[in-house]
Protein backbone atom coordinates (compact mmCIF):
# COMPACT_ATOMS: atom_id res chain seq x y z
CA UNK A 1 0.00 0.00 0.00
CA UNK A 2 2.81 2.38 0.85
CA UNK A 3 4.49 1.54 -2.43
CA UNK A 4 1.32 2.28 -4.40
CA UNK A 5 0.42 5.66 -2.96
CA UNK A 6 3.40 7.42 -1.44
CA UNK A 7 2.03 10.90 -2.20
CA UNK A 8 -1.39 10.32 -0.73
CA UNK A 9 0.28 9.26 2.49
CA UNK A 10 1.86 12.62 2.99
CA UNK A 11 -1.08 14.64 1.69
CA UNK A 12 -3.87 12.90 3.62
CA UNK A 13 -5.74 15.10 6.11
CA UNK A 14 -6.61 13.58 9.48
CA UNK A 15 -9.88 11.66 9.57
CA UNK A 16 -12.70 13.61 11.18
CA UNK A 17 -13.98 12.30 14.50
CA UNK A 18 -17.39 12.49 16.14
CA UNK A 19 -20.67 11.75 14.39
CA UNK A 20 -19.38 13.09 11.07
CA UNK A 21 -16.48 10.64 11.21
CA UNK A 22 -18.86 7.85 12.22
CA UNK A 23 -20.98 8.44 9.10
CA UNK A 24 -17.90 8.71 6.86
CA UNK A 25 -16.42 5.47 8.24
CA UNK A 26 -19.59 3.52 7.57
CA UNK A 27 -20.27 5.16 4.17
CA UNK A 28 -16.73 5.04 2.77
CA UNK A 29 -17.13 1.81 0.71
CA UNK A 30 -13.95 0.63 2.43
CA UNK A 31 -13.19 -1.16 5.68
CA UNK A 32 -15.44 0.34 8.35
CA UNK A 33 -13.24 -0.05 11.43
CA UNK A 34 -10.32 2.24 10.55
CA UNK A 35 -7.14 1.59 12.46
CA UNK A 36 -8.57 -1.61 13.95
CA UNK A 37 -7.09 -4.89 12.72
CA UNK A 38 -9.40 -7.71 11.63
CA UNK A 39 -8.35 -9.72 14.68
CA UNK A 40 -9.49 -7.04 17.09
CA UNK A 41 -12.69 -6.31 15.17
CA UNK A 42 -13.58 -10.02 15.15
CA UNK A 43 -12.89 -10.34 18.87
CA UNK A 44 -15.24 -7.40 19.52
CA UNK A 45 -17.94 -8.97 17.37
CA UNK A 46 -17.51 -12.30 19.15
CA UNK A 47 -17.78 -10.51 22.50
CA UNK A 48 -20.96 -8.81 21.29
CA UNK A 49 -22.47 -12.22 20.50
CA UNK A 50 -21.36 -13.47 23.92
CA UNK A 51 -23.05 -10.44 25.47
CA UNK A 52 -26.32 -11.68 24.00
CA UNK A 53 -25.71 -15.19 25.36
CA UNK A 54 -25.11 -13.96 28.92
CA UNK A 55 -27.81 -11.30 28.51
CA UNK A 56 -30.32 -14.04 27.74
CA UNK A 57 -29.17 -16.18 30.69
CA UNK A 58 -29.65 -13.28 33.09
CA UNK A 59 -32.93 -12.45 31.41
CA UNK A 60 -34.15 -16.03 31.88
CA UNK A 61 -33.09 -15.88 35.53
CA UNK A 62 -35.03 -12.62 35.97
CA UNK A 63 -38.12 -14.14 34.38
CA UNK A 64 -38.01 -17.23 36.62
CA UNK A 65 -37.42 -15.20 39.74
CA UNK A 66 -40.22 -12.75 38.99
CA UNK A 67 -42.79 -15.39 38.06
CA UNK A 68 -42.25 -17.96 40.82
CA UNK A 69 -44.70 -18.02 43.72
CA UNK A 70 -42.21 -19.61 46.12
CA UNK A 71 -39.72 -17.46 48.05
CA UNK A 72 -36.29 -17.02 46.42
CA UNK A 73 -33.40 -18.32 48.59
CA UNK A 74 -31.44 -15.52 50.29
CA UNK A 75 -28.10 -15.45 48.42
CA UNK A 76 -26.48 -13.53 51.27
CA UNK A 77 -27.04 -16.52 53.59
CA UNK A 78 -26.65 -19.30 51.01
CA UNK A 79 -23.14 -18.11 50.16
CA UNK A 80 -22.11 -17.24 53.73
CA UNK A 81 -19.08 -18.89 55.31
CA UNK A 82 -17.80 -19.40 58.85
CA UNK A 83 -14.28 -17.96 58.97
CA UNK A 84 -12.39 -18.29 62.26
CA UNK A 85 -15.70 -18.63 64.04
CA UNK A 86 -17.15 -15.48 62.47
CA UNK A 87 -20.24 -15.66 60.28
CA UNK A 88 -19.43 -13.75 57.06
CA UNK A 89 -22.29 -13.27 54.57
CA UNK A 90 -21.36 -13.65 50.90
CA UNK A 91 -17.64 -13.59 51.76
CA UNK A 92 -16.54 -16.20 49.22
CA UNK A 93 -18.20 -14.30 46.38
CA UNK A 94 -16.59 -11.06 47.54
CA UNK A 95 -13.14 -12.69 47.52
CA UNK A 96 -13.82 -14.15 44.05
CA UNK A 97 -14.77 -10.67 42.84
CA UNK A 98 -11.54 -9.17 44.17
CA UNK A 99 -9.49 -11.99 42.62
CA UNK A 100 -11.06 -11.38 39.22
CA UNK A 101 -10.57 -7.61 39.42
CA UNK A 102 -6.93 -8.11 40.38
CA UNK A 103 -6.52 -10.32 37.32
CA UNK A 104 -8.08 -7.60 35.14
CA UNK A 105 -5.53 -5.12 36.46
CA UNK A 106 -2.54 -7.37 35.76
CA UNK A 107 -3.97 -8.03 32.27
CA UNK A 108 -4.17 -4.29 31.54
CA UNK A 109 -0.54 -3.98 32.67
CA UNK A 110 0.43 -6.88 30.40
CA UNK A 111 -1.13 -5.15 27.38
CA UNK A 112 0.79 -2.00 28.27
CA UNK A 113 4.06 -3.92 28.62
CA UNK A 114 3.44 -5.72 25.32
CA UNK A 115 3.24 -2.46 23.40
CA UNK A 116 6.52 -1.42 25.01
CA UNK A 117 8.00 -4.69 23.67
CA UNK A 118 8.91 -5.81 27.20
CA UNK A 119 8.79 -9.54 26.57
CA UNK A 120 9.61 -10.88 30.03
CA UNK A 121 7.30 -8.48 31.88
CA UNK A 122 4.42 -9.16 29.47
CA UNK A 123 4.71 -12.93 29.81
CA UNK A 124 5.07 -12.71 33.60
CA UNK A 125 2.02 -10.49 33.97
CA UNK A 126 -0.02 -12.77 31.71
CA UNK A 127 0.96 -15.80 33.79
CA UNK A 128 -0.01 -13.93 36.98
CA UNK A 129 -3.35 -13.14 35.33
CA UNK A 130 -3.80 -16.81 34.46
CA UNK A 131 -2.98 -17.78 38.07
CA UNK A 132 -5.65 -15.39 39.38
CA UNK A 133 -8.07 -16.91 36.85
CA UNK A 134 -7.22 -20.45 37.98
CA UNK A 135 -7.71 -19.37 41.62
CA UNK A 136 -11.14 -18.03 40.69
CA UNK A 137 -12.13 -21.31 39.02
CA UNK A 138 -10.83 -23.24 42.04
CA UNK A 139 -12.97 -21.17 44.39
CA UNK A 140 -15.93 -21.71 42.14
CA UNK A 141 -15.36 -25.46 42.28
CA UNK A 142 -15.31 -25.18 46.09
CA UNK A 143 -18.55 -23.17 46.01
CA UNK A 144 -20.25 -25.69 43.73
CA UNK A 145 -19.26 -28.69 45.86
CA UNK A 146 -20.41 -26.89 49.03
CA UNK A 147 -23.82 -26.15 47.53
CA UNK A 148 -24.19 -29.63 46.05
CA UNK A 149 -23.37 -31.19 49.44
CA UNK A 150 -26.06 -28.96 50.98
CA UNK A 151 -28.60 -30.40 48.59
CA UNK A 152 -28.83 -27.78 45.83
CA UNK A 153 -29.77 -29.36 42.52
CA UNK A 154 -30.93 -27.87 39.20
CA UNK A 155 -34.43 -29.15 40.05
CA UNK A 156 -34.65 -28.15 43.70
CA UNK A 157 -33.03 -26.95 46.92
CA UNK A 158 -33.85 -26.90 50.64
CA UNK A 159 -34.56 -23.15 50.88
CA UNK A 160 -37.24 -22.22 48.37
CA UNK A 161 -37.83 -21.75 44.68
CA UNK A 162 -36.58 -24.74 42.68
CA UNK A 163 -35.41 -22.47 39.86
CA UNK A 164 -32.58 -21.14 42.08
CA UNK A 165 -30.41 -24.19 41.37
CA UNK A 166 -30.91 -24.22 37.61
CA UNK A 167 -30.17 -20.49 37.28
CA UNK A 168 -27.13 -20.79 39.57
CA UNK A 169 -25.53 -23.78 37.84
CA UNK A 170 -26.29 -22.48 34.35
CA UNK A 171 -25.00 -18.93 34.81
CA UNK A 172 -21.95 -19.56 37.01
CA UNK A 173 -21.10 -22.73 35.07
CA UNK A 174 -21.08 -20.91 31.76
CA UNK A 175 -19.04 -18.08 33.25
CA UNK A 176 -16.57 -20.51 34.84
CA UNK A 177 -16.13 -22.20 31.45
CA UNK A 178 -15.29 -18.82 29.96
CA UNK A 179 -12.70 -18.19 32.69
CA UNK A 180 -11.16 -21.63 32.09
CA UNK A 181 -10.90 -21.02 28.34
CA UNK A 182 -9.40 -17.60 29.10
CA UNK A 183 -6.72 -19.16 31.33
CA UNK A 184 -5.75 -21.57 28.53
CA UNK A 185 -5.75 -18.72 25.97
CA UNK A 186 -3.55 -16.62 28.28
CA UNK A 187 -1.03 -19.40 28.84
CA UNK A 188 -0.70 -20.11 25.11
CA UNK A 189 -0.09 -16.44 24.26
CA UNK A 190 2.22 -15.96 27.27
CA UNK A 191 4.40 -18.85 26.05
CA UNK A 192 4.66 -17.31 22.58
CA UNK A 193 5.54 -13.90 24.04
CA UNK A 194 8.16 -15.43 26.32
CA UNK A 195 9.72 -17.31 23.40
CA UNK A 196 9.84 -14.08 21.39
CA UNK A 197 7.59 -15.29 18.55
CA UNK A 198 6.36 -11.76 17.88
CA UNK A 199 9.89 -10.37 17.57
CA UNK A 200 11.32 -13.18 15.44
CA UNK A 201 8.24 -13.46 13.19
CA UNK A 202 7.91 -17.18 13.95
CA UNK A 203 4.84 -18.66 12.29
CA UNK A 204 1.95 -20.04 14.30
CA UNK A 205 1.18 -23.76 13.92
CA UNK A 206 -2.50 -23.17 13.16
CA UNK A 207 -2.54 -20.24 10.74
CA UNK A 208 1.10 -20.54 9.59
CA UNK A 209 1.29 -16.74 9.78
CA UNK A 210 3.55 -14.70 11.98
CA UNK A 211 1.77 -12.94 14.84
CA UNK A 212 2.02 -9.46 16.32
CA UNK A 213 2.03 -8.12 19.85
CA UNK A 214 -1.54 -7.02 19.23
CA UNK A 215 -2.63 -10.56 20.16
CA UNK A 216 -1.91 -9.61 23.79
CA UNK A 217 -4.46 -6.81 23.54
CA UNK A 218 -6.98 -9.14 21.87
CA UNK A 219 -6.48 -11.73 24.62
CA UNK A 220 -6.93 -8.87 27.07
CA UNK A 221 -10.25 -7.91 25.47
CA UNK A 222 -11.53 -11.44 26.09
CA UNK A 223 -10.24 -11.48 29.66
CA UNK A 224 -11.75 -8.10 30.54
CA UNK A 225 -15.04 -9.28 29.08
CA UNK A 226 -15.02 -12.27 31.44
CA UNK A 227 -14.53 -9.82 34.32
CA UNK A 228 -17.28 -7.61 32.91
CA UNK A 229 -19.76 -10.50 32.86
CA UNK A 230 -18.87 -11.27 36.48
CA UNK A 231 -19.72 -7.66 37.41
CA UNK A 232 -23.27 -8.26 36.15
CA UNK A 233 -23.58 -11.74 37.71
CA UNK A 234 -22.30 -10.42 41.05
CA UNK A 235 -24.81 -7.58 41.08
CA UNK A 236 -27.85 -9.33 39.64
CA UNK A 237 -27.52 -12.87 40.97
CA UNK A 238 -25.63 -12.58 44.26
CA UNK A 239 -26.58 -9.13 45.54
CA UNK A 240 -30.13 -8.73 44.21
Amino acid at each position, binding site marked *: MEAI*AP*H*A*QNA*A*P*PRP*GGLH*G*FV*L*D*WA*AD*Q*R*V*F*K*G*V*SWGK*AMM*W*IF*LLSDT*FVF*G*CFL*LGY*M*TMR*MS*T*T*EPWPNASEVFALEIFGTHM*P*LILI*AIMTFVL*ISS*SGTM*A*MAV*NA*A*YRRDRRLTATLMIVTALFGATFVGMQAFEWSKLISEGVRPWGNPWGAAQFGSAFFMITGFHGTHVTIGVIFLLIVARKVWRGDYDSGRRGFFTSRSGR*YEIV*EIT*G*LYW*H*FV*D*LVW*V*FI*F*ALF*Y*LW
Partner: protein
Amino acid sequence: MAHAATHQHGHEARSATVVHEEGQAHPIRVYLVVWGWLFVLSLFSYLVDFFHLQGLLRWTLILIFMMLKAGLIVAVFMHMQWERLALAYAVLLPPIAVLVFVAIMVFESDYVHLLRLSYFSADGG
Protein backbone atom coordinates in the same frame (compact mmCIF):
# COMPACT_ATOMS: atom_id res chain seq x y z
CA MET B 1 -17.50 11.81 -1.82
CA ALA B 2 -15.00 10.32 -4.27
CA HIS B 3 -12.63 13.09 -3.28
CA ALA B 4 -12.97 12.34 0.40
CA ALA B 5 -12.62 8.63 -0.23
CA THR B 6 -9.29 9.10 -2.00
CA HIS B 7 -7.94 11.06 0.89
CA GLN B 8 -9.20 8.55 3.40
CA HIS B 9 -7.63 5.74 1.47
CA GLY B 10 -4.26 7.38 1.56
CA HIS B 11 -4.61 8.23 5.19
CA GLU B 12 -5.58 4.73 6.10
CA ALA B 13 -2.31 3.40 4.76
CA ARG B 14 -0.39 5.78 6.96
CA SER B 15 -2.45 5.35 10.10
CA ALA B 16 -2.35 1.57 9.75
CA THR B 17 1.41 1.73 10.05
CA VAL B 18 1.20 4.04 13.02
CA VAL B 19 -1.30 1.83 14.79
CA HIS B 20 0.89 -1.23 14.34
CA GLU B 21 3.76 0.59 15.93
CA GLU B 22 1.90 2.22 18.80
CA GLY B 23 -1.23 0.13 19.35
CA GLN B 24 -3.26 1.16 22.36
CA ALA B 25 -0.40 2.57 24.41
CA HIS B 26 -1.58 4.69 27.33
CA PRO B 27 0.09 5.84 30.52
CA ILE B 28 0.18 3.21 33.26
CA ARG B 29 -1.25 5.73 35.73
CA VAL B 30 -4.65 5.58 33.98
CA TYR B 31 -4.82 1.81 34.48
CA LEU B 32 -3.78 2.03 38.13
CA VAL B 33 -6.41 4.67 38.92
CA VAL B 34 -9.15 2.61 37.25
CA TRP B 35 -7.93 -0.52 39.01
CA GLY B 36 -8.18 1.27 42.34
CA TRP B 37 -11.70 2.49 41.58
CA LEU B 38 -12.81 -1.02 40.63
CA PHE B 39 -11.67 -2.27 44.04
CA VAL B 40 -13.42 0.58 45.84
CA LEU B 41 -16.67 0.09 43.90
CA SER B 42 -16.61 -3.68 44.52
CA LEU B 43 -16.08 -3.05 48.21
CA PHE B 44 -19.05 -0.64 48.22
CA SER B 45 -21.31 -3.19 46.54
CA TYR B 46 -20.25 -5.81 49.08
CA LEU B 47 -20.98 -3.36 51.92
CA VAL B 48 -24.50 -2.87 50.54
CA ASP B 49 -25.08 -6.52 51.35
CA PHE B 50 -23.05 -6.51 54.54
CA PHE B 51 -25.12 -3.71 56.11
CA HIS B 52 -28.37 -5.35 54.94
CA LEU B 53 -29.62 -2.31 53.06
CA GLN B 54 -33.05 -3.12 51.67
CA GLY B 55 -35.67 -1.84 49.27
CA LEU B 56 -35.21 0.87 46.69
CA LEU B 57 -31.91 2.07 48.19
CA ARG B 58 -30.38 -1.39 47.78
CA TRP B 59 -31.42 -1.83 44.13
CA THR B 60 -30.31 1.71 43.22
CA LEU B 61 -26.87 1.34 44.82
CA ILE B 62 -26.29 -2.12 43.33
CA LEU B 63 -27.20 -0.93 39.84
CA ILE B 64 -25.15 2.27 40.08
CA PHE B 65 -22.02 0.43 41.26
CA MET B 66 -22.59 -2.23 38.57
CA MET B 67 -22.86 0.31 35.75
CA LEU B 68 -19.86 2.32 36.99
CA LYS B 69 -17.69 -0.80 37.13
CA ALA B 70 -18.86 -2.02 33.72
CA GLY B 71 -18.28 1.44 32.22
CA LEU B 72 -14.75 1.69 33.62
CA ILE B 73 -13.80 -1.77 32.35
CA VAL B 74 -15.16 -1.18 28.84
CA ALA B 75 -13.94 2.41 28.49
CA VAL B 76 -10.41 2.07 29.88
CA PHE B 77 -9.35 -1.57 30.20
CA MET B 78 -10.93 -2.49 26.85
CA HIS B 79 -9.83 0.87 25.34
CA MET B 80 -13.26 1.72 24.00
CA GLN B 81 -12.90 5.43 24.74
CA TRP B 82 -9.90 5.61 22.41
CA GLU B 83 -11.58 3.74 19.54
CA ARG B 84 -13.44 5.47 16.72
CA LEU B 85 -17.21 5.84 17.04
CA ALA B 86 -17.74 3.39 14.13
CA LEU B 87 -16.55 0.54 16.39
CA ALA B 88 -17.94 1.89 19.65
CA TYR B 89 -21.49 2.20 18.29
CA ALA B 90 -21.30 -1.17 16.49
CA VAL B 91 -20.55 -2.85 19.84
CA LEU B 92 -22.39 -0.71 22.38
CA LEU B 93 -25.73 -0.08 20.64
CA PRO B 94 -26.93 -3.65 19.82
CA PRO B 95 -27.18 -4.65 23.53
CA ILE B 96 -30.06 -2.15 23.77
CA ALA B 97 -32.08 -4.94 22.13
CA VAL B 98 -31.45 -7.00 25.29
CA LEU B 99 -32.92 -4.19 27.40
CA VAL B 100 -36.03 -4.16 25.21
CA PHE B 101 -36.25 -7.94 25.73
CA VAL B 102 -35.94 -7.37 29.50
CA ALA B 103 -38.83 -4.92 29.39
CA ILE B 104 -40.98 -7.41 27.47
CA MET B 105 -40.19 -10.21 29.92
CA VAL B 106 -40.98 -8.04 32.95
CA PHE B 107 -44.57 -7.73 31.69
CA GLU B 108 -44.68 -11.41 30.77
CA SER B 109 -43.42 -12.67 34.13
CA ASP B 110 -45.81 -10.38 36.02
CA TYR B 111 -48.61 -11.97 34.03
CA VAL B 112 -47.35 -15.53 34.67
CA HIS B 113 -46.96 -14.72 38.36
CA LEU B 114 -50.56 -13.51 38.50
CA LEU B 115 -51.78 -16.67 36.74
CA ARG B 116 -49.84 -18.87 39.15
CA LEU B 117 -51.24 -17.03 42.15
CA SER B 118 -54.81 -17.51 41.00
CA TYR B 119 -54.42 -21.16 39.84
CA PHE B 120 -52.23 -22.44 42.68
CA SER B 121 -54.06 -20.60 45.45
CA ALA B 122 -56.37 -23.60 46.01
CA ASP B 123 -53.53 -25.72 47.44
CA GLY B 124 -51.76 -22.88 49.19
CA GLY B 125 -48.95 -22.55 46.52
